[in-house]
């Protein structure tokens, strides 16, 4: 047991939690810029609704289901419901850390929020806002909280202690959430996109990103926040955090280069959307591996993610599945790459709590373990999401009307438009001279 809170560690974990929080608005910008102008607000609102719902659920029982003191390999218990039992306690997770338990609970909360927000990219332009809200709350409860327990809960006070997750016990390496966050969200996105169906005009009418600077801004916020996500997962201001930080940076740099190279050779131009996507794909892939590989391994993982994901995002047109903003091509594929790459690139020379992969004489065992981890999360998330989506489709309906989808979900669902470009929707010069008048405004002097 530590005798006192360590100020440096606590400061870093609190800061890291705030950085991971920033990733959810980052996703909102990243996705929002990629939709058409008529649905940018709905896209961003899905992230903010997830933030609201998941946070309340996390305090009520989510943290406890994921990291509760008891429970079994599949799910925690309700020992920490309401979070009050955590006040004045040290964080425990396969050991006791000299940081407040609440700091750990808030850090982990941000992961739960962004995992749900990530799924929204698959349902752009067409999902009922109420249905999304119910989906987000139920999915977090049935899928994220248990899966976070499987992967991240190393047992109450000692490694493998009571209530450790079954994948953690199995020895699946996932430092910051390649399985629990990215494979999980990607598989759910695939399932939800299948049940929801394609947008009107998918594959025929152009559905171009309406604001690429927003996409780049979102990618920049994600990139910055991801240092909290990965390096913060060390739960201390220490050497391991620095390893994770380094690998996060170099993998992302390599991912940008990989994606742009594919575009230049295949399409003729290196694009801004490609640079942003390559960065995110590499960030996803390095997430499980960031504290278990050497920097050259991180570069290899980044390039692999950039190149493979650049091809993966085109598959949806052949499969005729409208995963609108490529949650599958980037997060599911990137997550699987990172998870499996550990089977090759993991080395105990950077982290003695890790394992050696194939390239370090560790044999094929780790690769097998990683494959089990990736497949288990993928299959569980996919199956539960399919079932949940079908129930929601029957009970409340998943899609907005055709009329609302074509005219724009922003106006239909939120009674707002993203951009005031003149009342005719054409240009800026006539704004304010049109035919609408002010209702319920302040009285004129």
């Amino acid at each position, binding site marked *: 047991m530590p005798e006192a809170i360590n100020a440096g560690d606590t400061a870093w974990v609190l800061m890291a939690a705030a950085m991971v929080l920033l990733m959810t608005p980052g996703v909102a910008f990243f996705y929002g810029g990629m939709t058409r102008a008529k649905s940018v607000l709905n896209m961003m609102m899905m992230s903010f609704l997830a933030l609201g719902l998941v946070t309340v659920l996390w305090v009520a029982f989510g943290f406890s289901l994921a990291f509760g003191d008891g429970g079994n390999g599949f799910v925690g218990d309700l020992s920490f419901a309401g979070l009050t039992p955590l006040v004045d306690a040290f964080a425990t997770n396969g050991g006791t850390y000299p940081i407040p338990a609440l700091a750990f609970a808030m850090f982990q909360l941000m992961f739960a929020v962004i995992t749900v927000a990530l799924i929204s990219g698959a349902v752009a332009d067409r999902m009922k806002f109420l249905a999304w809200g119910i989906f987000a709350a139920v999915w977090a409860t049935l899928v994220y909280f248990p899966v976070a327990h499987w992967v991240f809960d190393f047992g109450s006070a000692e490694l493998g202690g009571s209530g450790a997750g079954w994948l953690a016990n199995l020895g699946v390496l996932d430092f910051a959430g390649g399985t629990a966050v990215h494979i999980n969200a990607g598989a759910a996105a695939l399932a939800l996109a299948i049940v929801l169906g394609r947008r009107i005009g998918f594959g025929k009418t*152009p559905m*171009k*990103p309406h604001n690429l600077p927003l996409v780049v801004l979102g990618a920049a916020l994600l990139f910055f926040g991801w240092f909290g996500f990965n390096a913060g997962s060390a739960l201390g201001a220490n050497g391991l955090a620095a390893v994770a930080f380094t690998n996060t940076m170099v993998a992302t740099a390599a991912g940008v280069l990989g994606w742009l190279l594919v*575009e230049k050779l*295949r*399409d*003729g*131009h290196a*694009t801004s*959307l*490609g640079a942003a*996507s390559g960065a995110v794909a590499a960030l996803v892939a390095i997430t499980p591996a960031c504290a278990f590989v050497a920097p050259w391994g991180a570069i290899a993982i980044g390039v692999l993610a950039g190149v493979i994901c*650049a*091809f993966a*995002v*085109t598959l949806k*047109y052949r499969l005729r599945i409208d995963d609108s903003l*490529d949650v599958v*091509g980037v997060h599911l594929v990137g997550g699987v790459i990172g998870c499996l790459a550990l089977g090759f690139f993991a080395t105990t020379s950077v982290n003695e709590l890790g394992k050696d992969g194939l390239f370090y004489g560790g044999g094929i065992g780790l690769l097998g373990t990683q494959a089990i981890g990736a497949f288990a999360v993928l299959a569980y998330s996919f199956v539960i999401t399919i079932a949940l989506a079908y129930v929601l489709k029957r009970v409340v309906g998943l899609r907005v009307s055709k009329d609302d989808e074509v005219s724009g979900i922003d106006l239909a669902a939120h009674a707002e438009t993203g951009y005031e470009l003149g009342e005719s929707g054409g240009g800026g010069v006539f704004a304010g001279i049109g035919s609408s008048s002010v209702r319920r405004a302040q009285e004129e002097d």
Partner: protein
Amino acid sequence: MKLITAIVKPFKLEDVKAALEGRGISGLTVSEASGYGRQKGHTEVYRGAEYTVDLVPKVRIEVLVDDAAADGVIEAIVAAAQTGKIGDGKVWMVPVDAVVRVRTGERGIDAI
């Protein structure tokens, strides 16, 4: 009086303006336009998905001139806007019945 309308490549706007000023033309109207002619549109690729965009960006220049100056102005615009490549644009002229300067009420040639 004539109305001359020219659709040209955006990067040629400065050259055309200079040529018109050189011929003593004192006013013109410029607007952004999009359209296509023989060159058709262009392609854009987003995450590997290729979109054919029919319309290409152009600049529309409108200028009112006296009948006597009209042919010379058209020649000046064409000379300034020409690159010899497909997509250079078009210039056309139509007769104008009346022109009024809003500030003074002047009519006809005086209003140009």
